């Protein structure tokens, strides 16, 4: 009978079964790998949410990645009130020792009235006290510790000390993340006050508004040579880029469309480190305020040339303007301050 032959054939093949031990170990290894991958994707998503929150003037920040199984379906938390400050750090290419420093450091201030966003550029060459290391330039704090996360924490601490405001959330964007983010929204429009010749790629970008794809945007964001104010001009371009990105995100309705948003989130790969806030993404999306529809205002932290003995080429706070500016920032009165000091405001369009 064929049924009996089948049974016998099966029974004889039982010994072919692989040993349990190695298979079990292989499963566990694969699980660890896959969990890590999941976490990376989630981290990237969180970073994007922070960037989106920062730029769109959302009233809250990103979720904690480790505790939310699904970014979109995370439980809603009530949006926080009051002024918020978010830190966006653009990391440069890794140096020969593998460490990175910051190209641009933007403090995004969202006032309590949610009227608009303030993009405060913090010069990377600003001389600041470093924890346990005397003084150093602000951008060097990103190289502290072993990885970008540690570097971000050091930068965050330095910025908090410098400005006296609490940093509610933040993200580090590498070149790659910036490139992918830009391409994911279909390019970002930037309005340049003067022509830029790239020191790195020999491309030229004419004065005026233009749509830049990912690699062009990164190229522009890197430039500081051949510009009258060097790194300060680069900071202004970072603010222009942020304004263009915000405009683009708004234009595409990404933030109100979960499908588009999750597609964007998965497109932007790793290469981002984020600081997590206390609210979930739905709360963040739900809280989209009037700030998202208004043009942001960009302003540079008032600084002057002249560092310390060890760092003669750095910047220090402008003793005439900085105290008033920082008071305004801490007191959530940037609207008055920028109105009184129009020269400090960066033109974005």
């Amino acid at each position, binding site marked *: 009978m064929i049924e009996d032959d089948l049974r016998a054939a099966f029974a004889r*093949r039982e010994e072919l079964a692989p040993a349990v031990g190695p298979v079990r170990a292989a*499963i566990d290894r694969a699980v660890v790998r896959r969990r890590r991958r999941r976490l990376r994707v989630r981290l990237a998503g969180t970073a994007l949410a922070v960037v989106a929150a920062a730029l769109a003037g959302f009233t809250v920040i990103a979720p904690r990645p480790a505790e939310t199984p699904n970014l979109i379906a995370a439980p809603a938390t009530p949006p926080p009130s009051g002024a918020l400050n978010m830190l966006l750090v653009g990391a440069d290419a890794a140096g020969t020792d593998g460490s990175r420093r910051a190209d641009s450091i933007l403090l995004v201030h969202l006032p309590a009235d949610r009227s608009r966003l303030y993009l405060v550029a913090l010069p990377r060459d600003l001389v600041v006290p470093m924890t346990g290391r005397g003084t150093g330039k602000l951008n060097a704090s990103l190289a502290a510790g072993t990885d970008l996360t540690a570097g971000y924490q050091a930068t965050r601490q330095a910025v908090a000390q410098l400005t006296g405001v609490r940093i509610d959330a933040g993200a580090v964007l590498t070149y790659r993340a910036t490139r992918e983010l830009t391409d994911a929204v279909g390019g970002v429009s930037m309005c340049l006050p003067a022509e830029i010749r790239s020191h790195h790629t020999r491309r030229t970008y004419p004065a005026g508004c233009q749509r830049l794809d990912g690699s062009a945007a990164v190229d522009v964001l890197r430039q500081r040579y051949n510009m009258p104010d060097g790194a300060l001009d680069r900071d202004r371009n970072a603010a222009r880029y942020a304004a263009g990105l915000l405009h683009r995100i708004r234009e595409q309705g990404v933030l109100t469309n979960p499908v588009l948003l999750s597609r964007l989130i998965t497109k932007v790969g790793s290469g981002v480190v984020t600081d997590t806030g206390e609210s979930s993404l739905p709360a963040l999306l739900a809280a989209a305020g009037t700030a998202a529809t208004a043009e942001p205002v960009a302003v540079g932290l008032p600084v002057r040339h002249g560092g310390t003995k060890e760092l003669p080429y750095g910047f220090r706070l402008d003793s005439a303007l900085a105290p008033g500016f920082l008071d305004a920032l801490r007191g959530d009165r940037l609207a008055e301050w920028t109105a009184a000091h129009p020269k400090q405001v960066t033109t974005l369009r």
Partner: protein
Amino acid sequence: MTYEEFADARLGALLRYAVMLTGDPHQAQDLVQETMVRVQLNWRRVARSDAPERYVRRMLTNQFVDWRRGSWARRVLLRGEPDEGVPAPADHAQSAVDRDQVWSWLSRLPRRQRATLVLRYYEDLPDAEIAEILGCAVGTVRSCISRALATLRAEYVEVC
């Protein structure tokens, strides 16, 4: 039940089941590994079902039936062909060869049919449970089995 307890108790049986499905220890390992990774990642959902073991067996069977349709079939065929031209000196040996041919014929069956035969004649499950694992009606299971057996019988006739 924790994932560890489940793996301690059931991994061996799942590996044997996978060998019967695929006919090959390496493919069996791939199949079990892929399934168990998903089981571990989603353990809370698996543990919530009334019979985790059946749930996992169902995952594994579906994986076998659906997964990598093209390449899997080709690989099974390549390995499944019996070594022809081996002489059979005695009747006793001939019957052993015949019985082994059943094994190689199995690899030519559609995977779903093979799965029903394994569940029926190796796992000795009732038709209702097979239907639940494959996600089909009991009648479909029966027709599946009878069609598979008919194919095997036809092979018998050809050889004899």
